[in-house]
């Protein structure tokens, strides 16, 4: 069995550690490129959301490399994600591939079932092996998240263009290769310091923007043409509302969502699927924390985020904070939203100047 799964930011590194630790033969799909995208677009339904299309591209490229088993998450709606795997299976079938598709249906909060499903893929498992694999994957997740958090701040002040990004990429590879949780931790802590040392302190108080929106877009930079980097390179410090550990933990412990649901309530009364309730709740939180602006990113046709988008435009007025919504499809080309993002940053700068002039 040669196992593969779709890319989503650094999740691939974490899953590789987990599955290899469990004794699996893992084929990591090649990094997402224009080819991945165009393969996905060519074979997916026109109005499917972009993550589905990129998944399909990942699968095709991994199958070309000899993968024969695909691991995918399922779901019970109301968002489309729960049906992704079903449609993807049919698409691959028509292309003449016949991979085994293992679609893990997550009855919310029942991590045990998830583990059992997984175990069936890896014969010869021992408890010790599982513990080691989970420990390594967990540590990678924790430190990759921390690194990324630091990246999104330090890169705004890097000494020269690319300095921090390169350092981050270099260490991410080390972490990917490491088989030792202790080493992962040491690498993680070290790179944060190294990234810090590659910055120059900003002259003025930097702008801070929070990026909210659809989960795949928050975790995987490709489809937004790495809006995080783009903002950083305009000197803006960025925080995003979801990192991989948030995603994983809220799947295992659904009550983690309760706080956010409460925050969202005045504007959105219930969970409506996808991450809309997070988008709304987090926007309130970040507005309270004094961020200068909020940017919502999501795939074109993403139903939950479209609802959120409508609500955000009201919140922007109520909470007096600029909010910009950007929806992406495969045609949002390289220069796509660059001008809009620059204009938004200018607006925030002007607001700030006007604000201080009032004092």
């Amino acid at each position, binding site marked *: 069995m040669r196992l593969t799964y779709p890319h989503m930011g650094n999740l691939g590194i974490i899953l590789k550690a987990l599955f290899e630790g469990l004794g699996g033969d893992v084929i990591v799909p090649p990094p997402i490129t224009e080819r991945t995208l165009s393969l996905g677009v060519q074979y997916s339904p026109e*109005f499917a959301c972009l993550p589905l299309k990129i998944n399909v591209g990942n699968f095709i490229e991994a199958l070309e490399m000899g993968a024969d088993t695909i691991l995918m998450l399922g779901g019970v709606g109301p968002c489309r994600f729960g*049906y992704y795997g079903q449609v993807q299976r049919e698409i691959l079938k028509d292309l003449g591939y016949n991979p085994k598709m293992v679609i893990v249906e997550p009855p919310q909060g029942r991590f045990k079932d998830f583990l059992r499903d997984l175990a069936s893929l890896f014969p010869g498992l021992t408890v010790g092996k599982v513990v080691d694999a989970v420990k390594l994957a967990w540590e990678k997740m924790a430190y990759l998240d921390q690194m990324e958090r630091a990246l999104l701040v330090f890169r705004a002040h890097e000494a020269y263009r690319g300095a921090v990004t390169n350092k981050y990429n270099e260490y991410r590879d080390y972490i990917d290769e490491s088989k030792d949780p202790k080493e992962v931790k040491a690498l993680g802590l070290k790179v944060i310091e190294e990234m810090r040392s590659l910055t120059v302190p900003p002259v003025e108080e930097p702008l801070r923007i929070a990026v909210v929106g659809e989960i795949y877009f928050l975790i995987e930079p490709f489809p937004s043409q790495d809006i995080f980097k783009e903002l950083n390179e305009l000197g803006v410090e960025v925080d995003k509302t979801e990192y991989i550990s948030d995603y994983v933990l809220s799947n295992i412990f659904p009550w983690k969502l309760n706080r956010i649901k409460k925050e969202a309530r005045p504007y959105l009364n219930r969970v*409506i699927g996808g991450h809309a309730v997070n988008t709304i709740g987090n926007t309130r939180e970040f507005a309270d924390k004094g961020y200068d602006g909020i940017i919502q990113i999501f795939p074109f*046709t993403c139903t939950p985020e479209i*609802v959120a*988008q*409508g*609500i955000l435009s009201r919140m922007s007025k109520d909470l007096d904070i600029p909010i910009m919504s950007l929806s992406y499809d495969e045609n949002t080309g390289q220069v796509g939203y660059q001008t809009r993002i620059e204009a938004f940053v200018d607006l925030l700068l002007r607001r700030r100047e006007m604000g201080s002039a009032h004092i």
Partner: protein
Amino acid sequence: MDIKVGIPRALLYYNFYPAWKVFFNELGAKVILSQKTNKKIVDDGVLNTVDEACLPVKVFFGHVINLKDRGVDYIFVPRIVSVEKRRYLCAKFLGLPDLIRASIRDIPPIIDMEIDLYRGYNRNVDREIDRVGMIFTKDMRKIRKAKEAAIIAQNNYEKHLKSGLIPREAIRIMEGAKVVKAPDSGLLKIGLLGHNYNIMDEYINMDIIKKINDFGGTVITADMLKESDIEYGASCYPKDMFWTYGREMLGAGRYMLDSGIVDGVVIVTAFGCGPDSLIKEMVEKEYKRRNTIPILSLTIDEHTGEAGIITRLEAFMDLLRWKEVV
């Protein structure tokens, strides 16, 4: 003075209007329906919703604005989460009242009754209905009666639909009009798949049913099929389709294909619709693999031109007729 409740003639109006109307009437309220979809309603809707929203949601907004201008006391914007066990509606229905409140200012208060049968008809459902009933009366007996009357009306309505009537005919019959079902105008049986708010709103789909009739076809929709037929079709797929109307489309599409009760199928979806993007793919794939019954897919949005639809439909009907001859 009776309290006036406005009901938007959009979205699930086509599926539940008789029940809603009876419910409010029994509570002593007068029901005001928004006008039929027209250009102004579409334009108002487009203007007041986010660009990314699908046409049906934009049209719904237009109808809410139409009601606002007609002096109603309340507007009924239910939050319809689920209309049957273990299945949902599209996320947009779940957030509809929130979206309306956030987007349209100065409207009469919204009655945002939550309809959630995901776990079956239980105490919470009752409590929610009572909450809404109490806007109109303190008399619990009256509320219970209204509830029961609504359920009866809904059952009648669905019976009419199963008998082959389309919503506007069934609604007229229930309001006392005599409707004589027009004799089958054509030899060709056309399966018409799509959400009712897409296939039954004559304005946004350029009256597709009439066009099919004019070209010599009779329409069969999912509503007219037996539940067991839909179940048969839906169960051909390994995973239960968790959207109610998605499942209907998928199941009806598959049943029509396997049973061959139709000569051709027309599937209508809204531009940018999330759920339908996947359902349509699943339906179409099977039709293409078998290549026995032709399928025509039409996408509608606010810019859809009548000419385009006519040309494609006409060509499609010609193809079916030609197939018949061969």
